């Protein structure tokens, strides 16, 4: 069964005013449990509005949202439980840190869930180790930490609630390449260890291509496609046409095809590019001029 399901989900902002705008238009989506989904789409494509529906921050104008089979807006479902099951990490989450120690900040969510102190401690240690925050930092004020560390503390607070679904809105925005790789690796490790469902909004096709098991592309308030990375990148041509920046490597292979070389166009990582080139050469019985 799908852990996340939407049925004809539609949301219109500022109904009845000159600013009326449909941000999500008739979206039907089924996301299976355990996927690591990369969500791509340019600003205004509806991706932020869509994710805010998944833990009930926004009520659909029409249509339904099911989490784990339950309609989150039905009378029998408590929204509070939905929010414990679906953890949402906003952009620049480090701005939301407020507690006086790192420990207390991570504990904030679990405490609100009514967990006992022992369980909270266990979860904090687990997540601290997983994110490489260093247990010695738990007593520190979060404001003594570097920007990248602060962001990981903020993400840890949501991970410690052990939600069935974790959604992160651009978790790498504004970080340097090293900081970006650290956070993406840790999200991948969290996904591997907890086997939970993770949704990650990103502007970087390169990042999404490396980590996601599925890619959701939003365009003009609608789902453009939802599929595995190779299948999505097979449509690289169309992706470029809707204004998305496909990985540099993908553009190179599209250019090769234009030059008349019959090579596959679903190439999106450097490793895969090397493999594809070797296969092509082998097929055409040409030795590399090594």
């Amino acid at each position: 069964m799908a852990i996340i399901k939407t049925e004809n989900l539609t949301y219109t902002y500022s109904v009845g005013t000159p600013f009326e705008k449909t941000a999500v238009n008739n979206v039907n989506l089924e996301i299976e449990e355990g996927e690591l989904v990369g969500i791509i789409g340019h600003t205004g494509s509806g991706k932020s509005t869509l994710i805010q529906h998944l833990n009930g921050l926004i009520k659909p104008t029409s249509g339904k949202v099911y989490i784990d089979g339950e309609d989150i807006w039905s009378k029998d479902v408590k929204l509070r439980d939905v929010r414990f099951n679906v953890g949402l990490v906003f952009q620049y989450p480090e701005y939301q840190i407020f507690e006086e120690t790192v420990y207390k900040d991570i504990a904030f969510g679990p405490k609100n869930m009514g967990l006992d102190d022992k369980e909270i401690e266990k979860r904090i240690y687990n997540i601290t180790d997983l994110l490489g925050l260093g247990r010695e930092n738990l007593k520190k004020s979060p404001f003594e930490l570097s920007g990248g560390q602060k962001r990981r503390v903020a993400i840890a607070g949501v991970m410690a609630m052990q939600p069935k679904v974790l959604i992160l809105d651009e978790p790498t925005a504004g970080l340097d390449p090293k900081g970006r790789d650290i956070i993406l690796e840790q999200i991948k490790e969290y996904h591997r260890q907890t086997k939970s469902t993770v949704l990650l909004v990103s502007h970087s096709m390169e990042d999404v291509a490396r980590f996601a098991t599925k890619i959701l592309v939003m365009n003009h308030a609608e789902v453009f496609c939802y599929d595995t990375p190779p299948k999505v990148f097979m449509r690289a041509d169309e992706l470029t046409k809707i204004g998305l920046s496909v990985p540099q490597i993908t553009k190179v292979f599209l250019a090769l095809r234009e030059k008349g070389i019959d090579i596959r166009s679903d190439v999106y990582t450097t490793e895969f590019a090397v493999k594809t080139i070797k296969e092509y050469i082998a097929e055409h019985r040409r030795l590399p001029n090594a």
Partner: protein
Amino acid sequence: MENIILAENVEFSYPADPESGEEAALILKDVSMTIKKGEFVAVLGHNGSGKSTIAKHMNAILIPNKGKVYSNGIDTADEARIFDIRQHIGMVFQNPDNQIVATIVEEDVAFALENMGVPQEEMRKRVDDALKSVNMYEYREHSPSQLSGGQKQRVAIAGIIAMRPDCIVMDEPTAMLDPIGRKEVMKTIRKLNKDYGITIVLITHYMDEAALADRIIVMDSGKIVMEGIPKDIFSQVEKMKLLGLDVPQVTELMYMLKNDGFSADTHIISEEECADALYKLLA
């Protein structure tokens, strides 16, 4: 060519902690660099490498503890000349929302000119020219709150352009923008450099942006560790990775092919060059 920025053996640390009296770590250690008039220089380095700190020395926001910085020939330690320096060396920061002060686009662009006491007629002309140069003229009567991040950043840049600077120092101007906003801002930066001859110092994390520069300076732990044209810098793939930096995907592909015994040129940094090279290999 004339130097617009000259840094000589610059050392910098923030003041000691008043409570503990603990000495702060050195952020810049003996940094020397020159930026020539009309150049487009990108500065790379991971967080904490000192790249933003050196940028803030260029228009006297920070003054070296040791060493000297001359901006347009003026010693930045000369407090009496601070306004001269800042009129000629403008600065654009990461967050567009923190740089916009007025409620109407053209008023925001005029802000510095009003402070400088530029006459009304002259001001009108400079504001219009500045907005046109960043392609935001049609938005002159809009409220900044209705603009996208990329548009806001271009308004912030127009505010600097209106001062007719010789040089603009940009500290990660595209970090908070989406790919479309990034493209708009980069296009503007290149135009200002090529068509208007404004010197650009661009601090960035994006390797594709640095690839467009005339020269790249790489910083690590408060020192300059590499300097050269983009092709030469990015071809040193291993060294860049050790420094916690990336190279363009196409350069990495060439590097991997070379390691696998193909004759591949790691000086390739653009998609076109890469496609041409692969075409030769495959056709």
